[in-house]
């Protein structure tokens, strides 16, 4: 009697089982991979704003410090977007009749808020605090990239948990002196400088869950 299962069925079984396994693994992995793709994280996707605000001009050309407008970064969890009257502090003197800032003038006149579009958005179960990062030697550029070279701001960091943990597990190389926080181009003089800074700041590796999740 001929064998019910000829020898090739062994191979076929292996192939089918392997394919099924790959399918299951793929089904599990695919959403995880997808969630980390730029499409999902939003990395590199410039966000259009109701006012064509150009950071290149304000930061690089005019030399306005980040903290002049994002003043909450040193004191609050949120860096904040400046109130319209902060913008008007300069713009009622310069470019005050430019059609580009018509929404700004309307906001100051009527009190209507400007609907700025969020570039960096963390999930609601994540509690990030700007103040403690900024005052402990993490520069703006570490997370936000070269905003001074962006026309429309886009996200540089992936803002995934892994991305946060990469730094939280080894914060030392990202440290900088407090007076260089807003400097986009600062580099350490020597490898030992950040080690000294870590000692000065008392930098800790905070990786327990309630550091961010509360």
């Amino acid at each position: 009697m001929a064998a019910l299962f000829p020898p090739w069925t062994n191979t076929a079984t292996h192939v089918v089982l392997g394919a099924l396994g790959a399918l299951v693994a793929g089904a599990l992995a695919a959403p995880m991979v997808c969630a980390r793709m730029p499409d999902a994280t939003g990395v590199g996707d410039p966000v259009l704003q109701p006012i064509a605000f150009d950071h290149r001009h304000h930061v690089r050309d005019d030399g306005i410090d980040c903290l002049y407008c994002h003043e909450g970064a040193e004191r609050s969890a949120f860096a904040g977007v400046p109130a319209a009257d902060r913008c008007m502090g300069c713009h009622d003197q310069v470019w005050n009749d430019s059609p580009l800032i018509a929404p700004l003038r309307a906001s100051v006149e009527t009190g209507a808020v400007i609907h700025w579009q969020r570039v960096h958005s963390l999930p609601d179960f994540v509690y990030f605090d700007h103040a403690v990062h900024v005052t402990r030697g993490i520069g703006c550029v570490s997370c936000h990239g070269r905003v001074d070279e962006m026309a429309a701001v886009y996200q540089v960091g992936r803002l995934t948990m892994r991305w946060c943990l990469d730094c939280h597990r080894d914060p030392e190389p990202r440290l900088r002196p407090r007076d260089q926080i807003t400097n986009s181009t600062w580099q350490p003089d020597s490898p030992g400088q950040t080690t000294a800074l870590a000692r000065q700041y008392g930098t800790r590796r905070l990786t327990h869950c309630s550091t961010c999740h509360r």
Partner: protein
Amino acid sequence: MPTDGFDLEHGVRQEALERAVARVGHGWHGIAALVELAAASAWPAERAAHEAAPDDPGAAPGDPALSRRSFLQLAGSGAAAVGLAACSSRPSREILPYASQPPELTPGVPLHYATALVEDGFATGVLVASHEGRPTKVEGNPDHPASLGATRAIEQAAVLQLFDPERARLITERGAPAPWAAIEAVLDAARAARGDGLHLVLEPTTSPIAIELIRRVRAALPAAGVTFWSPFSPRASLAGNRLAFGRPLQTQLELRAADVIVALDADLVAEHPMALAYARQISDRRRVVDGGSAMSRLYAIEAGYTATGVIADHRFSVRGSQIERVAGELLAAVLGRLGLAGPPPALTARLASVAPAAERAPWIVAIAAELTGAPGRSVVVAGERQPLVVHAIAAAINAALGNLGRTVGYTEPVAFEAGQPSHDLAGVVRAIDRGAVTRLLVLGGNPVYTAPQGVALAGAIGRVADSVYLGLYDHETARACRYAVPGLHELEQWGAARAYDGTLTPIQPLIEPLFGGRSVADVLHRLLDDPPADARDRLAAAWSRLVPDAPLEAALGLGAVPGTAAPHVAVELAWGALAPVISAAGARSPAPLELAIRPHPFVHDGRYTNNPWLLELPEPITKLTWDCAAQLSPATAARLGVADGDLLALTVAGPGAAGGDTVVAAALAPTATIELPAIIVPGHADDAITVHAGFGRDGGEHTARGIGASAFRLWRSALEFHPAITAVARGDRRPLAITQAELSDEDRPLALTGTLAGLAGPAVRDALAHHRGAQPSLYARRPHAPGAQWAMSIDLTTCTGCSACVMACAAENNTPVVGARQVRNGREMHWLRIDRYYRGPADAPVLAVQPMACQHCELAPCEYVCPVEATTHSPDGLNEMTYNRCIGTRFCSNNCPYKVRRFNWFDFKDHRGLRIAARNPDVTVRDRGVMEKCTYCVQRIRRAEIDARVADRPLAGSDVRTACQQVCPTQAIAFGSLTEVDSPVVEHRRRPHSYAVLHDQGTAPRTQYLARIRNPNGALP
């Protein structure tokens, strides 16, 4: 299936599908469009199923009414919809900065404002946190004498009432929208008539600004009548003091000076306008460090179990109507021991013949001996639900003991005209019946609901041509009046009030009025035709006129004006007037069954019944939520043949059987009956039933409506207490939503109790030592990381079970409300619960209360069993719960010996509507299927850490206060770091009666307790 119809729908559906598909671009828009697509494809199938079902109930599967194709469409789209429902909605992607940012504000940093919350006219100073102009959390004001940094549960829930979507929003005339001009016309006509036919019904007020306004109204409109009404404002104490001293006076206590306190049906630590201060004063004298600590002695003589009874060293249950007899016996015993010459001979002779009833002779004698042993250092207090004579006797005993001026003082009433005829609601009805009222202004309160049965206010209002109600809700009174005007919440208005001790307190708003609305002052100013002005300017002008010595700005900063407490007045006991009253005390023979009506500890007189937080907060003794019950003793329940939940028909007898303390003005309804489920309270006095007021609401407040029945329907007149009632078992029952049904701890070492004398001896100390220290464990104990190591200690001696901590926890941590049905299923979500256990004999049990939340075990059983590491341990000793990791296996809850973990069985959180504005933005709002529990307020810990690091200073354990610790009136909760050797929490752990619950489990909990130590009188059994 009608095919032509399907084709038509198919065309529409096709359009919808195409629209949706066009929108499936990328990101969240795509998801939204997919939901739309699923809905579009589900449409005809659902329609088909709907259409088929009613016409053809017998249709079998495969019947043309539901084709296989439709079924598969339905199933497929259903599956897609379920899958998509799992995705949370698209988060907000906008940042909306201020157009002009207020200089004091940094987005993300909350501001705190000092203001006051007012009840029955008396202010409790609070500090309210405001996130970008949104009030989120109420804390006590440490600088305010009626708060001392603590609040009750009611104040904690104030923000939810502010954001109550069921508040009145429109001016209405008989339910239809009306213009403000209509109200103005009424006010103008009243003014034109010089107040003729006008009557005002206000809540009692203590505000000098409001008082000035009322005086101006009286001067400008001399014919107008003014009545003040609040059902539970102090009344009996004022009238009793009038009896004793010849004029209505307010009793002020200084309980720190009292070695012996006798509470005659007086819930000093929970029900009094000064309860927070009195709770602190009593507990300051009862903090046990070791067996040698000095401790005051507290006697509670009461019918129902109260918070004061919980902390008392001796509690004697006596039905309310018999307490005047007890008071008389106590007076006789005290005077007998003192041999005082003060009372007239007739009274002395009468008292000499008073012998205590045999069953209470031992303790009356013992208490009298204690009192006379501590002259000037003792106090006898009568409760507001006791007749005047008990207050007068208490005053007489205090006078005899020389306590006046030491532990007891008297001030003129703080509330305007308190104790005078203008506080009699029956006067309003009499005036209406005379035809003297054509315009009635009811400004605040809910008198139609809270009026005693003898005051037929609802019908009377109907006979008034123009009646206007101003208040927060469309409730019974608003509906009885012709016009209803939305009022202002206390967090929306400017004003002032005095605390019970007279301290002046400014009130400032936290937010613009949410629904427009007008304050009482607005209406009175309009009535006087004052020019329109800003409310703050008006307050500032009046303040500088009336309180010239204390600038308003400074007062607003502090939340109180120091040194404005009412001065104590010299008093002379009028023995002559007292003698006949005291002689007659307790002469009445008790009825077979009597009723006591008390304000509910959380909804008070019904003004807070529409607040779901307060409804779901378990009543401290019965643990009942979302309901109102007839509390009765086990023996009385057996006599009536009822068990927990059996419905009782309670009927109060008509006027023929009345034996009250005052003449009832209007005719009583012959009988009134309400139906309530019975609930058995061990330790309740026999032959008496206690019912909490505030339920049985019948207005437009949907949350409150239809819960329980109103005790006010059995209330015959304002100064009549403990009427005879009949109770008949109805034969049916209603399941009660109780969070702790078991009464006993089954002899497990949970809430340990002991006596002060026992603590001094080695036996008890050694026994307690078995409940702390190291335990063998299979698991390796983690070494403590450097830095803070958080721990908590709860003193069960001073814990009154008042539940303010439970409410504060819910307010701080966004714990959801689940409703009565889910509470019955054991699914309440409070992170902190207060367990209560009865000990001792069934007729005189001792209640032990124990706050129980996550114990933050160092060797936490929950952590070992979590398959996804959603619950882990932090280096600073917290048992962390990471919601976004939790997959809802509930293994952790299964393995928790303390049963403190809560699971979101359903999506309990509010999704839309105003109430979400009360949420704390620093705490994640949990979703369905996620476990949660006490975090030691980790958001406050991390905030303190960040603040310390930003300010470049070391973190101190005292920088962090948990919500429960901060609110506790008796400061029973200590929290801090174990690494600071002089911190309160470490000091607590060194005390001999510090112990860990379920210590034998080897969980090494970070929360430890101080055993409940009583200081019983050795002369009593």
